[in-house]
């Protein structure tokens, strides 16, 4: 049974004057899932997160976050979400602990000082709580911003480009933190430009270009966008074999690549792969390698965006 949806939108749209930022977005995210929002700059990812966080009001359509309409009850929605904004934004002349205490004190039932100290420790910033935020590196600020988002232990997180501008090590640390948040059962909407990150972290990926172009698991998006192909390398090859393979009913096409390997499309790749191997061996072919051609998420993304642009 699917977990109940904690985030859902129905025809959610946002216009800024004549410009359409988000168009007719219909989306459902069950509890405990990480959904990645991918799209070019200006595709509407941040606007979507802001509408769901009750910071921007939609022009039309509705949204429900934890059963509440962010446009009607933004403050109640804020109690159950954590929103990591694009820029961390801190009072740089004040200490990390003072900053977190300030934000924590806006939430009901939160011991602000304890939550701030705990957050600083959780994010590996123990010993720096008393230091001015202005002295922090970008990675530390981003971790502090994540601590701020978690002060009231929200079940739903909106993360807007959490690793943007971080060095590889800081980005990895942050990704590990996000994985640990998922393990705790939190539902996460993650906006990112980093496709590797999206594939590593997300259960499903939503590709945006003002409107929702596609949403599915990375594997399903690949299958949808590109037909599965096998790469077969043989010790030697004759034109007769090529013709024989093309004549097989389970083979849809066979092409010879520039490196001599065969690019084979099968009617049903999982079912027909052993049949292909058997047939080649029967013909006397020596197989060096059979592998499925991996399409990167980047290929999938670019193909989807290109389709959406046409």
């Amino acid at each position, binding site marked *: 049974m699917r977990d109940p949806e904690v985030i859902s939108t129905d025809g959610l749209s946002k216009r*800024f004057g004549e410009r359409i930022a988000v168009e007719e977005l219909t989306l459902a995210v069950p509890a405990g899932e990480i959904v990645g929002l991918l799209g070019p700059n200006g595709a509407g990812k941040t*606007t979507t997160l*802001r509408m769901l*966080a*009750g*910071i*921007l*009001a939609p022009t039309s359509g509705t949204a429900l976050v934890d059963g509440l309409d962010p446009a009607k009850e933004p*403050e*109640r929605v*804020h*109690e159950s*979400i*954590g*929103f990591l*904004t694009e*820029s*961390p*934004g*801190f*009072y*740089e*002349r*004040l200490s990390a602990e*003072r900053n977190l205490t*300030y*934000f924590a*004190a*806006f*939430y*009901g039932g939160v011991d602000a000082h304890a939550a701030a100290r705990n957050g600083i420790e959780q994010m590996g910033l123990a010993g720096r709580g008393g230091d001015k935020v202005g002295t922090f590196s970008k990675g530390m600020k981003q971790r502090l*911003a994540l601590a*701020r988002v978690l002060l009231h232990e929200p079940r739903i997180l909106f993360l807007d480009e959490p690793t943007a501008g971080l060095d590889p090590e800081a980005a990895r640390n942050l990704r590990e933190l996000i994985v640990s948040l998922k393990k705790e059962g939190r539902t996460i909407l993650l906006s990112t430009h980093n496709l590797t990150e999206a594939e590593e972290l997300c259960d499903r990926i939503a590709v945006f270009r003002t409107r929702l172009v596609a949403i599915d698991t990375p594997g399903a998006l690949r299958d949808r966008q590109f037909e599965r192909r096998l790469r077969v390398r043989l010790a030697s090859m004759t034109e007769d074999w090529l013709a024989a393979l093309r004549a097989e009913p389970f083979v849809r096409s066979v092409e010879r690549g520039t490196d001599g390997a065969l690019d084979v499309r099968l009617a049903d790749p999982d079912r027909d792969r052993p049949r292909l191997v058997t047939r080649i061996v029967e013909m006397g072919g020596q197989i060096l390698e059979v592998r499925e051609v991996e399409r990167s998420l980047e290929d999938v993304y670019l193909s989807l965006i290109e389709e959406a642009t046409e």
Partner: protein
Amino acid sequence: MRRRIWNVVHMEWAGIAATPSSLLFLAVIPALLVGQAVFLSWIVPRFVNPAILGAGAGDADTLRLLILKQFPFFVLLIPAMIANVFATLSIVEEKVTRTLEPLLATPVRTWELLVGKIVAGAVPALLVAWASAVLFAAVGFGLGWGPLLRTLFTPTFFLSMFLLMPAVSLMSFVIGVIGSSRASDAKAAQNLAVVIIFPIFALIAVQVTGLVAFTPLRTLFLSLVLLAADGLLLRAAVRLFARESIVTRWK
């Protein structure tokens, strides 16, 4: 609700305390105004021929009293000047430091945020203004103007200090915060908030020229009108706080 407002107030104060230039500003403004008032009260009767003002010879004390009587209105400039700096920066600074969006993602309401910022600025401004009045009186007594100063302590003076001044102080900060939330940068906010000063200059002008004599009743009436206007302006400030344009246009 109260907890969230006080949270904003405390944070604003922490911000002021962490900024030496802000503390210096709070100390320098009253010192300058009091110093100027004392200097004028001392020098004008000493060197200006009372005859040019239509007073008779030997009317130096009358002249000094005339100047001293302006002080309760003159001191109204203090909260206005403080507001011109602190209130006008209050929202602009949040935009510049990118703290506004995380703040708007918390359960704080717009009006709580604005009231917090206004109270956080108006209270110290008021305290500084009252401290200036006490300092002025102390210096005045020290200079032997006791008998003249005693004549100032009328019901109008106390109404002006404890009702008119809080009303003016609140108004200065509300207008400053409106300017801050509508402006695109700190400089524009301060330009917009220059209007804070104008009504106070008008009050001083009216008092100095004697166009209107500020009786206790008139002072009370003016204070109540200003307090009512403060309430209306606060509502306007909440409406004018366009969070959408603030969040989307500030890059």
